[in-house]
């Protein structure tokens, strides 16, 4: 499994995408996340573990209370996804360039209509 697969698996669940949405704005405590998404702390904990395992989020204990875990997004997986999506556009850009060359060669300026 590649990192990209892992990222996609982690994002394949609506709750986890909700977590990502919330963390995009600012780092949050697990309790805030479970309250915002109306989910039990235990269930949220399982989702956070998946996100952590695949490297989408990280936790730190750096707050005023060392027992409280703060979750934040990691940037790297999103860069990789962006690259994948760019590949889709690169694919079409290549086809359209091939289309343009063929069309101009056969129908372009100076060519009769066939």
């Amino acid at each position, binding site marked *: 499994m590649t990192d990209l697969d892992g990222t996609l698996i982690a994002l394949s669940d609506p709750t986890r*995408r909700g977590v990502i949405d919330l963390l*995009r704005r600012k780092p949050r405590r697990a309790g805030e996340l479970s309250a915002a998404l109306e989910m039990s702390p235990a269930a949220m904990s399982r989702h956070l573990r998946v996100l952590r395992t695949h490297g989408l989020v990280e936790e730190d204990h750096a707050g005023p209370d060392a027992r409280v875990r703060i979750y934040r997004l990691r940037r790297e997986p999103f860069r990789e996804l962006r690259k994948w999506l760019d590949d*889709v*556009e690169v694919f079409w*850009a290549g086809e*359209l360039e091939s289309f343009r060359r063929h069309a*101009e060669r056969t*129908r372009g300026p100076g060519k009769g*209509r066939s």
Partner: protein
Amino acid sequence: MTGTGDAASVSVLVRVAPADAFDVFTREIDLWWKQGPQFRIAGRRRGQLFFECGAGGRLFETFESARGPRTFEVGKVTLWDPPRRLELEWRGVNFKPGEKTSVEVTFAQSASGTLVTVRHRGWSSLPEDHPVRHGLVGPAFSRMIGLWWGQLMTSLREHVETRR
């Protein structure tokens, strides 16, 4: 190249009239669509792409396999409005029945020719539990247009773009 949310969008300016651009894009697709395993299911085998004109027409590829001639239907034309616009369904090689994305192609007249724009969208309509799997046939092909990663793309593009 930009796209938002659910769509990948790419344009090219071609120095021919819209009617010619539309005609080449459809009837002559086999002449310009790239060859090779990244671009065709036939891979290195001899194959041919066909674009049947008119609503309900099919875009399909035929090729010889060890078990004889085979056909893969990419999708059917859902909108046919020459020379301005066409839309068709787009299925990757390992989409399940019923799973599809859509491709819209517009042909806009400009001073020097025609601006052709492809918008590939519909990832969000793929089911949430769509398997995250690499391709069964032609991994590079799958990677490029195997949009079965589907719905993920919607959220992910939004995430990525807002994080730039």
